């Protein structure tokens, strides 16, 4: 292996721009445009990896980024297919899965024990005796797996992009280029997605003198000139998802493309062939060889044998001759080789032996192929053995219909062409060219144009039906070209006959599995692991199906194929994620808390002050004087319209018909199974204007809930989530009225603005919405203001409160204060099966209104009677049991503690717990198991603090 002395004109490599990189500590010279693989090959490195199970040497095989043979660690990234990875200066490349190197691998010893490892062997041993399994498992795990995770975070930056297009064409080969042009000429905006770094597909890496090569250069020119075609190269469409959304990966970026129509023109996936030692380095697929020669100017061997099954194979042989490689023989699986072809004439003129009806039977060599044995396809007759260092397989391939299959299409087996063709395509999906089973050189272009025009039909104003019909008739006039041989398996030959190179599964393994009863393609795959490897069956699925059909005396169609699952190629977590942002939401008063040195904690997405001094001091301020807490994180939903009451009556268990303007009410929402899921207040600001607050974490869910219950009804309600438009504070404590009074001309007299009242008006010149409510159990005003006034509002209130020694208080104090009042927190004191009757919310359930969500379930629950209840408790000896500990009776758990705190004001440890309803009576003792100790507590069924609520109403 070396560089060609004169590179072909089609080369991508710029020999005047040298680069260097490191491979296993060795310096490798490369040139701009080289892939890591082409540079390694040019430097004589031919063993690229060791196989998964037997650690057999493996070399360059498919050259198109699918097979597992060239996976290496590149700059810290595991499992990079180096045949598709461009060289960058200074790259560090390392081998994988071999100790110490692919050339000499100690683990190759496993080959000697292959008789111990038939298909599924691990299901039959290692489990006896039972205690040995973990020991065996430890070892099995060590030898499995390819890439290494070292715990270091790779330094790369990832991105995500969102695009739209009328038509996306997947594949920039001849049919894809024609399709893109067709669609673009029909007026569509087109995005062309091509896996390679260049356009032109397999025509582009044919000999530069070939007609195909010239055609795609011309097509590329036209495509590039079109302003309505966006070209993405080095980009792989990995998934076709619901709603014609294409997932595309381009290096470290994911592109999501929403398309109206999708044309899949992704060509064929060339297949290897099953014969003895078919995995030796030096055995390559035809397209890999053409790429090396015509794109990278690298000579893959000195003396080659080519085995083909179609005219494309002849072109490969001719290309080898052009590049100065000796071709020892050309074997073709077909009965007849067409003498009139230019390539055949060339082969003949160079004296290459042409062997029809001949195939490879086995290969020989230890670390590299040394010779190949050819024999008749039919299996009977003479074999011949030829020395060579390169065996080229050009025996057809499978239409790449994975994407349309993901989109709902089914693959139907075409007996005559020996390939699966996609039919029953999903809406807006089209297939063209090689991937559509159209392999004739001219037809590929016609079929591409047909698909492009068809895809654009109806998007623009011009109708192209006539041209499409014309193209179709021209297509049917062209001869059908068959690429694939009838069988994928050689008649008998010695050596391991690999079906699946990824998983080291041989023909014998597949047959064994079938004999054991795994004779359907799905079970066969799972048991033998054929097609479960890094290429996901791209290289082996057809041979496996063929063998399965043969062994079970079924046709291929009867045997069927497995379902193609996304992604089409393996794709990095980084690219899928893009930049992993974790933005915080800060409250509008945030800077003030920071200035006060508050302890700020992360609650959900929000940063909130947990504490400014300590709960004892903060709660004393609230009880005795006045305190201020930010409540900006509350959810807020604005509701307007003539039917708001109807909507509220539906989503809340409470009744809303009698709520007067200027009043607010506590409300509870249940789902349709009667489970409590959110609570908050809802105020009537105007005749047809309501303002709802929800829990901090619940607002998005509640908003969705409201809109989804509105959908399909003719309710006249306008629902707006205004959470981030407002900030809010709660001024609480006996002096709260005086503080607020200094800032507003609103009449705060309890007659005018009573408990559970609401008003709109100015506070310190800012338009606000005010509620008089008492979550923390004292006289309190919740003031909501436009969020950009946050700092101003905080400052003026703190200023006005100075004379009353106002104190800010944090979330922790609020938790204690609310617990003193036995106010529950949904999701903490309730769980996913709590109904309102159990949670002391029976008073809120209004069975006498027409209907509400959850009514039926709550009604049934009421009929059955309540078995457990949420109650308060006080521990006898002041312990604070941990939240989540269990309430015990006779050794069984009968309930659990949901909230518990020490209340400095009451000087008691209090909490809420679930207990059997029979115990839900004042003074009942309960036993709590906390940290392995027993805590005795007494049940309290009313608020611990100010049970009559005189203080907040006062």
């Amino acid at each position, binding site marked *: 292996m070396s560089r060609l002395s004169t590179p072909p004109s089609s080369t991508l490599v710029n020999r005047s721009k040298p680069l260097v990189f490191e491979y296993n500590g060795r310096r490798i010279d490369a040139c701009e445009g080289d892939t890591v693989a082409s540079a390694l090959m040019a430097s004589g490195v031919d063993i690229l990896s060791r196989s998964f199970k037997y650690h057999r040497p493996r070399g360059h095989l498919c050259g198109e980024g699918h097979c597992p043979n060239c996976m290496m660690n590149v700059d810290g990234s*595991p*499992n990079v297919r180096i045949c598709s990875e461009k060289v960058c200066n200074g790259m560090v490349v390392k081998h994988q899965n071999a100790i110490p190197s692919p050339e000499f691998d100690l683990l190759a010893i496993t080959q000697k024990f292959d008789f*111990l490892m*038939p298909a599924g*062997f*691990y*299901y*039959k041993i290692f489990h*006896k005796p*039972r205690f040995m*399994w*973990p020991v065996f*498992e430890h070892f099995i795990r060590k030898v*499995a*797996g*390819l890439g290494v*995770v070292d*715990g270091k975070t790779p330094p*790369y930056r*990832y991105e995500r992009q969102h695009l739209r297009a009328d038509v996306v064409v997947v594949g920039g080969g001849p049919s894809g280029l024609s399709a893109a042009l067709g669609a673009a000429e029909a007026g569509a905006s087109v995005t062309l997605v091509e896996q390679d770094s260049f356009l032109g597909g397999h025509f582009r890496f044919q000999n530069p003198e070939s007609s195909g090569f010239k055609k795609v250069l011309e097509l590329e020119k036209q495509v590039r000139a079109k302003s309505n075609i966006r070209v993405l190269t080095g980009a792989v469409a990995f*998934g076709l*998802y*619901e709603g014609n*959304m294409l*997932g595309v990966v381009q290096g470290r970026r994911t592109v*999501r493309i929403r398309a109206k129509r999708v044309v899949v023109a992704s060509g064929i996936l060339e297949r290897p062939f099953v014969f003895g030692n078919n995995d030796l380095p030096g055995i390559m697929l035809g397209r890999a060889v053409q790429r090396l020669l015509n794109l990278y100017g690298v000579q893959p061997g000195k003396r080659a044998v080519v085995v083909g099954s179609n005219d494309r194979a002849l072109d490969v042989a001719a290309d080898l001759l052009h590049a100065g490689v000796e071709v020892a023989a050309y074997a073709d699986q077909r009965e007849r080789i067409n003498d009139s072809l230019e390539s055949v004439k060339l082969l003949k003129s160079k004296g290459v032996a042409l062997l029809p009806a001949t195939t490879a039977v086995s290969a020989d060599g230890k670390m590299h192929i040394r010779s190949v044995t050819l024999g008749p396809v039919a299996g009977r007759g003479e074999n011949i053995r030829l020395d060579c260092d390169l065996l080229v397989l050009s025996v057809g391939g499978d239409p790449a219909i994975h994407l349309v299959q*993901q989109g709902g299409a089914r693959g139907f087996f075409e007996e005559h062409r020996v390939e699966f063709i996609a039919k029953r395509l999903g809406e807006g999906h089209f297939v063209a060219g090689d991937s559509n089973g159209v392999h004739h050189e001219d037809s590929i272009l016609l079929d591409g144009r047909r698909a492009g025009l068809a895809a654009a039909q109806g998007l623009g104003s011009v109708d192209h039906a006539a041209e499409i019909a014309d193209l179709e008739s021209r297509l049917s006039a062209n001869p059908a070209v068959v690429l694939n041989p009838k069988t994928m398996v050689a008649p008998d030959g010695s050596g391991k006959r690999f079906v699946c190179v990824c998983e080291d599964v041989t023909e014998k393994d597949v047959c064994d599995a079938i*004999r*054991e*009863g795994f004779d*359907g393609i799905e*079970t066969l795959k*799972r*048991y033998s692991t054929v097609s479960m490897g*890094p290429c*996901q069956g791209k290289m082996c699925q057809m041979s496996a199906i063929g063998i399965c059909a043969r062994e079970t005396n079924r046709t291929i169609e009867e045997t069927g194929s497995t379902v193609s699952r*996304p*992604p089409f190629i*393996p*794709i*990095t*977590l*980084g690219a*899928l994620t893009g930049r992993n942002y*974790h933005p915080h939401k800060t409250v509008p008063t945030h800077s003030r808390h920071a200035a006060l040195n508050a302890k700020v904690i*992360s609650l959900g997405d929000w940063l909130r002050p947990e504490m400014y001094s300590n709960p004892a001091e903060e709660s004393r301020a609230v009880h005795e004087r006045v305190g201020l807490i930010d409540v900006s994180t509350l959810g807020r939903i604005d509701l307007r319209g003539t039917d708001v009451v109807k909507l509220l009556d539906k989503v809340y268990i409470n009744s809303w018909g009698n709520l007067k303007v200027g009043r607010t009410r506590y409300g509870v929402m249940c789902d349709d199974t009667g489970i409590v899921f959110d609570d908050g207040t809802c105020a009537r600001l105007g005749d047809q204007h309501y303002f709802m607050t929800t829990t901090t974490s619940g607002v998005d869910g509640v908003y969705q809930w409201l809109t989804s219950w509105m959908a399909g009804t003719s309710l006249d309600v306008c629902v707006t989530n205004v959470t981030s438009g407002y900030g809010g504070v709660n001024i609480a404590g006996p002096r709260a009225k005086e503080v607020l009074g200094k800032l507003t001309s609103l009449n705060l007299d309890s007659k005018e603005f009573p408990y559970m009242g609401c008003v709109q008006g100015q506070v310190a010149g800012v338009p606000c919405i005010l509620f008089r409510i008492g979550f923390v159990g004292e006289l309190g005003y919740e003031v909501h203001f436009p969020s950009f006034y946050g700092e101003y509002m905080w400052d003026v209130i703190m200023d006005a409160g100075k004379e009353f020694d106002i104190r800010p208080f944090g979330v922790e104090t609020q938790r204690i204060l609310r617990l003193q009042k036995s106010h529950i927190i949904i*999701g*903490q004191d309730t769980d*996913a099966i709590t109904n309102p009757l159990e949670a002391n919310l029976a008073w809120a359930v209004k069975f006498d209104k027409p209907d509400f969500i959850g009514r039926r379930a709550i009604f*049934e*629950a009421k009929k059955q009677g309540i*078995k457990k209840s949420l109650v308060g408790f006080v521990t006898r000896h002041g312990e604070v049991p*941990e*939240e*989540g*500990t*269990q309430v015990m009776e006779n050794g069984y*758990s009968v309930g*659990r503690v*949901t909230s518990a705190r020490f209340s400095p004001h009451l000087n008691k440890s209090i909490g809420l717990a679930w207990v059997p309803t029979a115990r839900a009576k004042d003074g009942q003792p309960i036993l709590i198991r906390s940290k392995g100790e027993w805590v005795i507590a007494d049940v309290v069924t009313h608020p611990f603090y100010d049970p009559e609520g005189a203080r907040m109403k006062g």
Partner: protein
Amino acid sequence: MLNFLSNDKKMWRRHTLKSSYEVVIVGAGIHGLATAYYLAKNHGITDVALFDKGYLGAGASGRNTAIIRANYRTAEGVPFYEESLKLYEDLARDLDYNIMFSQRGHLTLAHTDRGVTGLRERAEMNQILGINSSMIKPERVKQLVPTICLDSNPHYPVMAALWHPPGGVIRHDAVVWGYARGCDQMGVQIHPFTEVKAINTRDGAVQSVTTNRGEVKAKFVVNCTAGHASTIAQMVNVDLPITTHPLQACVTEPLKPFLDPVIVSSTLHIYVSQSDRGELVIGQEIDPFSSYSFRSTLPFLEGAAMHLLDLFPCLSEVRFLRQWAGICDMTPDYSPIMGFVEGVDGFILDVGWGTYGFKAGPVSGKRIAELIATRKTPNLIRPFRLSRFYENDLVGEKAAASVSH
């Protein structure tokens, strides 16, 4: 000598349909197979046919992420799943098939105060019931999983975890095949590609089953069709409180072992384990909409990547290899529905397996077999009876926020 490694004996044979069976089981996933297995093994009832419309394991039993654990939340759930775990521990020997039960531990992370409370609740309940399960601190998490990053997501740092050493993962296909072979050896008939189209009753009792291959008589019909349970129950006019949702999963390319325990984070919506092959197996919550669709979605794949990177930023260059979807029958309380159905004699439910039914296969099979053989509902599964939904007696496995695999 090593003949047992490769033999010609079929795992299960093909049969023509008989005209009648004592027990017909609809669905040959793990639940159907285990039921048949224990019917034959524990009770000598072998006149049993298993019908599946697809290949063996075509349903959720071939699509799940195979997490096994017993650290449930309720006094009803814990002993039930614990019995299953114990059966699993002995199953390889019992079936003489290596089902690769890998008890490398199960770790549930908490990232919020409320999350910590939820885990403590389970730890306490587990300890009371004798389950090896306890709360551990972040430092210990780091010891168990050195590659984890405890605070790469600043909103949701790891605050504590629930550590359950007996938990782990299993080779789910092997369990299916092992049970199938066991059933076959004892004379149970397995009929793949046989779809049940109707269940015929007379005078409130099951009479026969109509399939695409003909009609067969049956004394008992067991509904073991996770994902389609409500459609089968409809055949005898039984309404089930079930909604069906897709659940997706994906795997990465195989990597050298670096992750021993199963890791679950409900706050980050992710769970992950590393299989013996080296692949990371990843799942999230059910899709938020109900559907019978098996189509994978891109948001799932993106979410899985993003959330996994929250815990393991070092994995950004690791690649996803394959994604897929299955469907799950969800009940309101995240507990199954098992037992006889009033009004339809001979019709038995073993359904509502949601996202957590694989681990329950052995115990369900054993106890449903007992129920058929004795005509009595075993105490262990009584809490899961259908009528609990009408008796306000739910089994609260669905905590406020839980990933329930």
